[in-house]
């Protein structure tokens, strides 16, 4: 994740109701940083598929 996303990650993390969601937020921001909205959507879809294949 690029440095420009770090302040945003910090601000949003503070607003999460459960601390365990912080790592998901980190993943989400990384995906967004890498490929924008499309990458976020694709990755979440991939997560769903991975869970369903378990």
């Amino acid at each position: 994740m690029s440095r420009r996303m770090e302040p945003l990650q910090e601000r949003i993390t503070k607003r999460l109701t459960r601390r365990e969601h912080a790592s998901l937020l980190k993943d989400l921001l990384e995906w967004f940083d890498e490929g924008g909205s499309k990458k976020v959507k694709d990755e979440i879809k991939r997560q769903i598929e991975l869970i369903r294949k378990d």
Partner: protein
Amino acid sequence: MVDPFHITEITIEGFRGINGLLPLQFDDKSIIITGKNGVGKTTILQAIEWCLLGKCAYMEQDEFGREDAIVNMFHPDKKARVIMRLTDGKRNYELTRERKVGKSTKGKSELLLSNEKENYGGTEAEEKLAEILGISQEQFYAATYLRQESIRDFVVGNAETRSKVVDELLGLETLRQLSECIPLKEVETAVRKAQKEVKDIEETKFQALELARKKLTDYTDELRKKGFTEKKLTTGNLVLMAKSISDDLIDTASTMQIQAPKFETAAESLSSLQNAYRKLSDYFHDIDEKRFEVFENAQRTRANHQKYFDKYVETLDKLLEFKEQDPAKLQDKLDKTTEQKEETERDRNEVIDLVDFLNGEKATLKSLATESDKAKSKLKKLVDKYGSVEQIEKAVEKFDEETKNETRLKKEIGAYTQLLKSAVDYLGEAKPDKCPVCSRPIEHTSLRKELLSHITKAEETKIAKIDEKIDALKDSKKEYRDASSDIEELEEQVKDLEGQLLSEAEETEKKAKIKLKKPVEDHLTKLIGDLKDSARKLDDKVRGIKDSLFEIEKQLKPLKKALDEKEKLTEEIQEELDTKDTESKLKETLQRQIKREDSEIEKLKKIGDRFPSLRETLSNFKEILEYLAEEQRIRKLDEEIPGAKEKVDVLNKQSEKLQELFTGLSDISDALRTEKDSILKSTLDKLQSDISSYYSRILAHPYFVNVQLTPEEDKKGSVYRIVAYDDAKRFSTYVQTRFSNAQTNVTALSLFLAMAGATTSRLGILVLDDPSQSLDTEHKKALAKILADESKVKQVILATQDEEMTTLVEAATPRTQLKSITIQAWTHDHGPELGS
């Protein structure tokens, strides 16, 4: 000017309407480009746009894809090139964008970016430029470049595009994109799907097993009630039952004289037994239907034959009542009597015709006699008066003779008078004293007088009387001639009438075959009376014959009807039974047939008695089959249960994980929204304050004095609406719905200027193309003042053909901050021609 980048110099060549080289020095100042329409002002602004972004937003329509609108079509190298120098006071960059003519406006261009130390080209140059200026295309069009044709677009155009730009300006775009791209619905759907799969397995396996067990218990209870022990509830027993049912069916079919199909022995498997049940059940229903049909037919036929029998017996009995009557004799009598009746009627008609004829003849003869008498009477009167035709001829001759004599006398008197006239003339002329004949002395005057007197007397009396007599003779002659003609005519008429009378009388005698006696009329009257009596007698005779005929018909009609009925019925029965028998023999044949049919019906009834037991056996077979199928299903479900339990565990785990993902994403989504709302709250206030400030400075709406960007949530996410409020903020309206063109333009300018102030980019220019359109002097003044203020912090580049606006801007802006460029004209060879 320091900090944000601004333009110090731009050189344009081969771009749109600029064919030659157009170098423009901006000298670190704001620029106002003036000139009439079509001289190339907007082209200079488009050159700035193209050089920075590599595109011109205005050129999006379909037609721009059909030819190259960027490269000047007369440029010798067929190449467009814009060189622009930028500086922020510390760093200097030179941008060179160029491209060769292509088939479309949308063709790619090449950017070169350089400073004292570095050179960049292609994608690297584009990225470097974006990094240096920190501006997106959307920001450029919303807060840097206010295009002539889009001045109102930002207000009245698409709310989503506007919202994207506002979010970018407020630094909320990343948060917006992140919020919008989290597919919460898809994750939620995946959770629900996994949960549904668990529910489906529970319903189809666990609950189904429980239901099947209950059903099996019900089947067992039912079958035990019917006396089926556990031992009987087997496939082996069903095989035996199938054999027994098929044997019964074949036997029944054989009794009914039907060819039965071949039933194969069922195997000890459920599918084979189910197949066997289907075949046996189908065939059972087929022959049951057939039996019913045959039974119905037999009963119908038997009832029909019984009806024939009863009717035939009744018909024969009825004929016995006419035993003594011979229909042939009766018919002969009827024919003869009919003939007699017709003959009598003919005679009677002849008499009536003759009476009519004689009555007619009587009238004719009477009329002819009357006419004849009249003619005779007239003739007699004429003959009495004038005599016969011969006598009249003689009288006429006499009249002619007398007329001749009178005429001669008249001539003689005429000659004498002429002689006297000659003597008078002589005496008058000669006046002699002696007579020229006898020479005696005469007194000529008195003699002449006397002679004149003779002439007058002779002419006046004698000749007039003679003329009168001749006329009377002529009249008499004419009268006699007419009478003679009338007599001849009447004689002819009498002769003719007499002839007609004779002829009619002869014809009457001939037709009536009588000899007429005189007086004919009386004779005919008597004859007609006699004939009428005769006709009356014949009428009486006809009536008598008719009575006889009625009596004969009365006897013959029922006899003939009974005979016809018997004949018709005999034919029908013969055809039905295919026999030639008649009378009593036919009756016996019919009786025998009915007996046979009774026996057949009895046989069918006995066959029908087998069916309830067959039906019950089949029903039991089916129930045992269903019991065994349910038993097998339970066994199968029992086998599947461990696998299903395992699957449910897996699905439950998946569901939990998906639920976790959903909860996490929901939490993140909420956090993003909260963060966005927080930033929005702190930054939007400033932007709204700026919008209202500009809006009120450019003299806005008389009632809706405040304009604000208001965030609203709709189906597609959050959007910014442009809402105007009254002074007390009691009433509001969307600007698009109520504002005039000029008021909408003012709103657009206010938004543009406020957003330009809010932009975080490092490009410090403000490009405005003809911003004063639709504005009156007061609005223009206010705008000129604002632009003058803006030129203190940004490089304002303004193009306008509005001379008033130019004057106002030049008056409001210090000369140290503003440079005016005037374009005098446009030429084909060069393009814009600058003024001095």
